[in-house]
């Protein structure tokens, strides 16, 4: 949908498509690989129309083999290409984990920068759409913990396009997590053509002096909703959308939590070993003496992401976040 010159109103999944199209046009070394991405246009239609436009050599339907095509993409990246692979759902990335952990993420370090892997791995992630088993994982922390790969997770169409382009241009491997639940939830004006959003920079989505709410991906709308509810009670929240999960935007976090002294971190994933704990470490390291209340974390539980009949009780909700906001306010 065209709104004004040079701008289109897009959903997140359309913005991803637009970024891929832009970069396939822009750079000859970009190549897409994955299951069902060509003829079918991707199970979420993220690659819709790209096979027709760019041909089978640049939009490659691969055999069903995550380790195979991710490993092959590493080889292509070593040899001058900029592959963008699609993992159909984050829950199916695990066969490729070895390739990512033991090769993509450490090739540069092992060879003193001689060989590099400018690879992008895209994966829809997260629960909340009543999907079958294993289709709802949010295991970003397995990758933020992994040294040698950046992890990016947009929450909006504008950021999705700008960050994906930045990821493709990045000289190092990037895991690009797409919030499945927000894929078509809303539209936003997205500029046509190429632009980037810097990796490593978060964004303040709402301003308030009382409390900081930190979230990413599919939890950003949850945090925003909670902040709106809080405002009705006279509590004003800064809402930070991290956008990049590794490396964290330390300065943005510190600036906000030093101002408010009260923080709630919202994480869809399991509690133990989650990214919220790293955010907490940043707060501890930068802003300990500014804190007026212990930081609250609203997270999923230490249980396998449940079947969908139970997912409403697993996922953080605006009500749970609001409860945490009130808790840090009333400390």
């Amino acid at each position: 949908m065209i709104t004004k010159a040079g701008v289109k109103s897009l959903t997140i999944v359309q913005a991803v498509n637009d970024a891929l199209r832009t970069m396939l046009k822009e750079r000859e070394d970009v190549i897409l690989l994955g299951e069902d991405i060509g003829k079918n246009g991707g199970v979420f239609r993220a690659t819709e129309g790209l096979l027709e436009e760019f041909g089978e050599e640049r939009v490659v339907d691969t055999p069903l083999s995550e380790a195979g095509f991710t490993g092959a993409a590493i080889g292509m990246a070593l040899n001058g290409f900029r592959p963008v692979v699609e993992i159909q759902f984050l829950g199916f990335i695990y066969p490729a984990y070895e390739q990512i952990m033991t090769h993509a993420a450490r090739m540069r370090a092992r060879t003193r920068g001689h060989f590099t892997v400018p690879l992008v791995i895209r994966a829809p992630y997260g629960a909340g759409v009543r999907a079958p088993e294993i289709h709802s994982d949010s295991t970003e922390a397995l990758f933020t913990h992994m040294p040698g790969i950046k992890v990016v997770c947009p929450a909006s169409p504008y950021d999705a396009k700008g960050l994906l382009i930045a990821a493709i241009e990045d000289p190092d491997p990037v895991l690009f997590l797409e919030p499945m639940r927000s894929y078509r939830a809303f539209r936003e004006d997205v500029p046509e053509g190429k632009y980037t959003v810097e990796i490593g920079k978060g964004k303040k989505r709402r301003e308030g002096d009382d409390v900081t709410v930190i979230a990413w991906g599919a939890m950003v709308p949850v945090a925003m909703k909670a902040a709106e509810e809080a405002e009705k009670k006279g509590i004003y929240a800064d809402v930070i959308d991290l956008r990049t999960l590794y490396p964290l935007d330390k300065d943005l976090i510190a600036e906000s939590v030093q101002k408010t002294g009260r923080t709630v971190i919202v994480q869809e994933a399991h509690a133990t070993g989650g990214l919220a704990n790293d955010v907490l470490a940043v707060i501890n390291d930068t802003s300990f003496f500014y804190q007026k209340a212990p930081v609250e974390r609203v997270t999923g539980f230490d249980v396998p992401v449940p079947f969908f009949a139970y997912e409403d009780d697993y996922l953080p909700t605006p009500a749970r976040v609001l409860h945490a906001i009130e808790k840090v306010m009333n400390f």
Partner: protein
Amino acid sequence: MELDFPMVQVLNEEGAIVQPAYREQITKELTMSMYRHLIRTRMVDRKCVSLQRQGRIGTYVPYEGQEACQVGSALALNDGDWMFPTYRDHGAMMTFGRSLTQTLLYWKGRTEGCVPPEGKKIVPPSVPIATQLPHAAGAACAEKWKGTKNAVIVYFGDGATSEGDFHEGLNFASVFHAPVVFFNQNNQYAISVPMTRQMKTKTIAQKALAYDIPGLRIDGNDVFAVYFKTTEALERARNGEGPTLIEAVTWRYGAHTTSDDPSRYRDQEESKKRRETTDPIKRVERFMQREGWWDEEWVNQVQGEVNAEIEQAVAEMERYPKANMSDMFDFVFAQPTWTIAEQKEAYLQWKRGMER
């Protein structure tokens, strides 16, 4: 190479027996039992698609067209055998003894659907492709090392042969002569990807050569070929002769799942044509007519019984107690860790507060 792996048929499309060696064994009783299971699985599948459309269950994976693979192979099993299915094999699971209500509960997002009936070794469907193959190899080794005569069947699709776990499972099983049947349903598509894009080989059966085990290519729409060849492979397994790879060539008529639109990647006219020509149920009907065993009244009666069974299961599913969210915490470990215990307690407390 495909000439070395010719497609085995027992009952051809016209409903004629083309392998006289099996003539004696194909009794009226066996045929009627096969037929009953075939139409039961088909009626259940259609019902599930319609329940999904009405929002009464979640995303559903239909198998219509593949009934002969699932029924024939499941009927070949002994009670003590193991079954390792995929998400598409609830036809096989039901034929082997999983109840219809459990099948429905699974598709309604309930873990109750993963618990097999007492005494039945039906493992929950594996959703990540090919991951169940090494499990089957291991379960089979265990049966062998325990000295039993139990065997294992594991199902997987054509696409699954591209995953590393396919190789690892077959290799492990062949090294240890594990009593396992690797039952491939080659429906010729992995979502949108046709077999020609999945592999260069024209058959899946020939991959058995690499493991020095028998590889068999059968007509997967011929319930008798499936039944007899699976029975023979299971016998080999029980007799300590090791694993077999069976490629059952078939076709799914409909979508990959209820969220898939097959017209994006293939001409659905092909499915229409196949319904008329190679349908697994029609050919048994033709056979029964030829033999003079066809009895309209009996068929109506069977359909009536299956319908009643389905209606009862749907009612049971819908009457089922609401999902208990404690379940999500309670079954992770034998003894909950303090983290889980605390998280559950805090959540329950908050929830009670909200309800007040």
